[in-house]
C-alpha cells in the first residue's frame, strides 16, 4: 500500500516536470515552424540586412534591424541606469549597512520588481516624459529615453539583489584578511570583495539585460510604435516585443505573411534571451564550484 502511494507521488511529480518541459518544447516548436514558413517567403539575408520594417504597409520590407535597434537602445539605456545604482546599492547593503537595515531594505527593493509593468509604462509616459521635456523640449511624446530609464528602475533589484547575494557569499575570512592588512572598508570592498564576487555580479547584469530585452509593456506604452533604425533616444522607436503586441492586437489574418512576422520577430527575441540566460547559467555554475 505504502509502495503504491510512493509510486503515485513519484509519478505525479515527474508528470508535472514533464509538462513544463513539454510546454517549453511546444513553444519552441511552434515558433520554429512558423518562422521557417516565414523564411521560405522572405530571405534570411533580407531579414537581417534590410533597414526597414514595414510588413503592414503596401510596400513591404522585412528588415529586423529597426526593431533590434529599438530593443537594444532601450535595453542599453535601462542598463546604464540600473548598473551603477544597483551595484552601489548592493555594495552598500553588503559591506556598510547595519544588519537590521539590510534585512529590512532588501525585500523592499525587490518590491520594485513586483510592480506591474503596465504601471511602469504609464509612469514613463505621463510622468517621466513630461518631466524630461522640461530639460529637452525636443523630446517626442514617445521616446526610448524615458522608457529606458523607467525600465532601468524596474531592473535595479535584479542587479542589486543578485549582486548583494554574491557579495554577501564572499567568505568573512577574506574581509578579515584585508582589514588585518590595514585596508579600509572601501579598499576591502573594491579590491577584494567585488573581484571575488565578480562572477555573481556578471550573472546579475546578464539576467537584468535579458529581462530588459524581453520587457514588453513599458516600451509598448512609452517608447512608441515606429520601427526606426536609430540611436537617437529622443524619438519614437519600436522594440521587437512592442511590435509583437501591436500585431497580435491588430486584425492581421491568421496564416498570412504579416501574421508570421510575429514569429520571425519572436524567434529573434528568443535567440537573444536564450543565449543570455545560457551564458549566465554557465557563469553561475563555475562560480558555485569555486565556493564549494
Amino acid at each position, binding site marked *: 500500500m505504502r509502495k503504491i502511494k510512493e509510486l503515485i507521488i513519484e509519478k505525479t511529480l515527474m508528470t508535472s516536470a514533464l509538462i513544463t518541459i513539454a510546454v517549453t518544447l511546444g513553444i519552441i516548436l511552434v515558433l520554429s515552424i512558423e518562422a521557417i514558413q516565414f523564411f521560405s517567403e522572405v530571405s534570411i539575408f533580407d531579414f537581417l540586412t534590410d533597414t526597414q520594417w514595414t510588413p503592414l504597409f503596401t510596400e513591404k520590407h522585412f528588415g529586423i534591424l529597426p526593431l533590434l535597434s529599438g530593443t537594444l537602445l532601450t535595453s542599453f539605456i535601462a542598463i546604464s541606469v540600473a548598473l551603477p545604482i544597483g551595484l552601489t546599492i548592493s555594495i552598500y547593503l553588503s559591506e556598510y549597512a547595519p*544588519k537590521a537595515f539590510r534585512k529590512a531594505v532588501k525585500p523592499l527593493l525587490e518590491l520594485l520588481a513586483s510592480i506591474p509593468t503596465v504601471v511602469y509604462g504609464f509612469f514613463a509616459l505621463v510622468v517621466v516624459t513630461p518631466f524630461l521635456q522640461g530639460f529637452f523640449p525636443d523630446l517626442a511624446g514617445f521616446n526610448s529615453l524615458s522608457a529606458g530609464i523607467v525600465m532601468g528602475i524596474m531592473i535595479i533589484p535584479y542587479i542589486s539583489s543578485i549582486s548583494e547575494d554574491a557579495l554577501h557569499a564572499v*567568505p568573512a*575570512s*577574506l574581509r*578579515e*584578511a*584585508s*582589514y*588585518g*592588512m*590595514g*585596508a*579600509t572598508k572601501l*579598499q576591502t570592498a573594491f*579590491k*577584494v570583495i567585488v*573581484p*571575488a564576487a565578480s562572477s555573481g555580479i556578471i550573472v546579475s547584469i546578464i539576467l537584468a539585460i535579458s529581462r530588459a530585452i524581453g520587457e514588453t509593456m513599458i516600451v509598448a506604452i512609452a517608447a512608441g510604435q515606429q520601427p526606426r533604425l536609430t540611436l537617437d533616444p529622443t524619438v519614437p522607436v519600436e522594440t521587437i516585443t512592442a511590435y509583437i503586441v501591436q500585431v497580435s492586437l491588430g486584425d492581421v489574418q491568421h496564416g498570412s505573411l504579416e501574421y508570421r512576422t510575429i514569429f520571425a520577430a519572436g524567434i529573434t527575441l528568443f535567440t537573444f534571451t536564450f543565449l543570455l540566460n545560457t551564458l549566465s547559467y554557465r557563469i553561475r555554475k563555475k562560480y558555485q564550484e*569555486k565556493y564549494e
Partner: protein
Amino acid sequence: MEITMENPKKKGVVLDSIVDTSLKKTPKIETKNIKVWYEEFNAIKGISMSIKPNTVTAFIGPSGCGKSTFLRLFNRMNDYVDGFSLEGKIKINGQNIYKKNVNVEELRKEVGMVFQKPNPFPKSIFDNVAYGLKIQGIKDKQLINDRVISSLKQVGLWEEVKDDLKKSGLALSGGQQQRLCIARTLAVEPSIILMDEPTSALDPISTAKIEELIFQLKQKYTIVIVTHNMQQASRISDYTAFFYLGELIEFNKTKNIFTNPEKKQTENYITGRFG
C-alpha cells in the same frame, strides 16, 4: 627550508628604533585590567599582561576561554563584532591603541595577523603578497617586487612558487597557503604578528614548517600565538599564558608553565585532565 632574513628597506618608524636599541626590555604590548563585553556577556574579566619584544608568547586554554578575543584586541579586530565593548588600556609600543584618534589602519600595518584557516585572496600569488603594499598606495614596482620576493623567501615559499607567481593563491596546498598568508603579512613589515591557531587546519608536515618559521621570525618580530596544541606551545614559545573563563590564570616562562605550574588549574589543563 632556506630562510633569509634580509630586508630591502629598513623601517624608519620611531617606535621600532626604540625597541631595537636601548629599551630592549620595554614591553611591546602592555595591557592593564582589560575587560571585554559582548552585549551582556563578560568575555574577558580584567587581564593585565605585558609581552616582551622578540619573544613568542603562546595563549592556551579551553575553547571559549577568551584567548582569541584577547588576541584580537591587539589589532582591534573585535571592533567589527556587534555589541563589543572594552574597558582598560592596551599599549603597543607605548601608545594606547584604543584612544579616539588612533588610526586603525596604521595600527594594523604595525600589528599583522595570521588566521586559523588559510585565507589567501582569490588573486595571484604575487598580488596576494603585494596587496598590503598596494593598498598603502605604494606604486614603486621595484620596491613591491623586492618586498614580495623577500617575503616569500622568509617563509620558505620562494623556491616552491618562483616560477608561477601568476598562479592563483588558492591553487596552493593548505600549508603553502598559510605560508603565503604569513608572507603577505610580513610584506607590510609589521613588528608584531598575531597568530590565531595558524596550524589547526594543517597536516603535521606543514605544521612543522610553520613552527620552524615562527622560531626564525622571532629574531625580528614579536609573535603572539593562540594554540590548542600543548606540544606546539611548549615547542615554540618563550612565554605561555593560560586562560580560563575570561581570566588569565597563569602567565610565565613556557618552561615553568609546563614543568612546574604554580596553579592547580594550569596543571590539570596541560596534563589533559580537563579542557
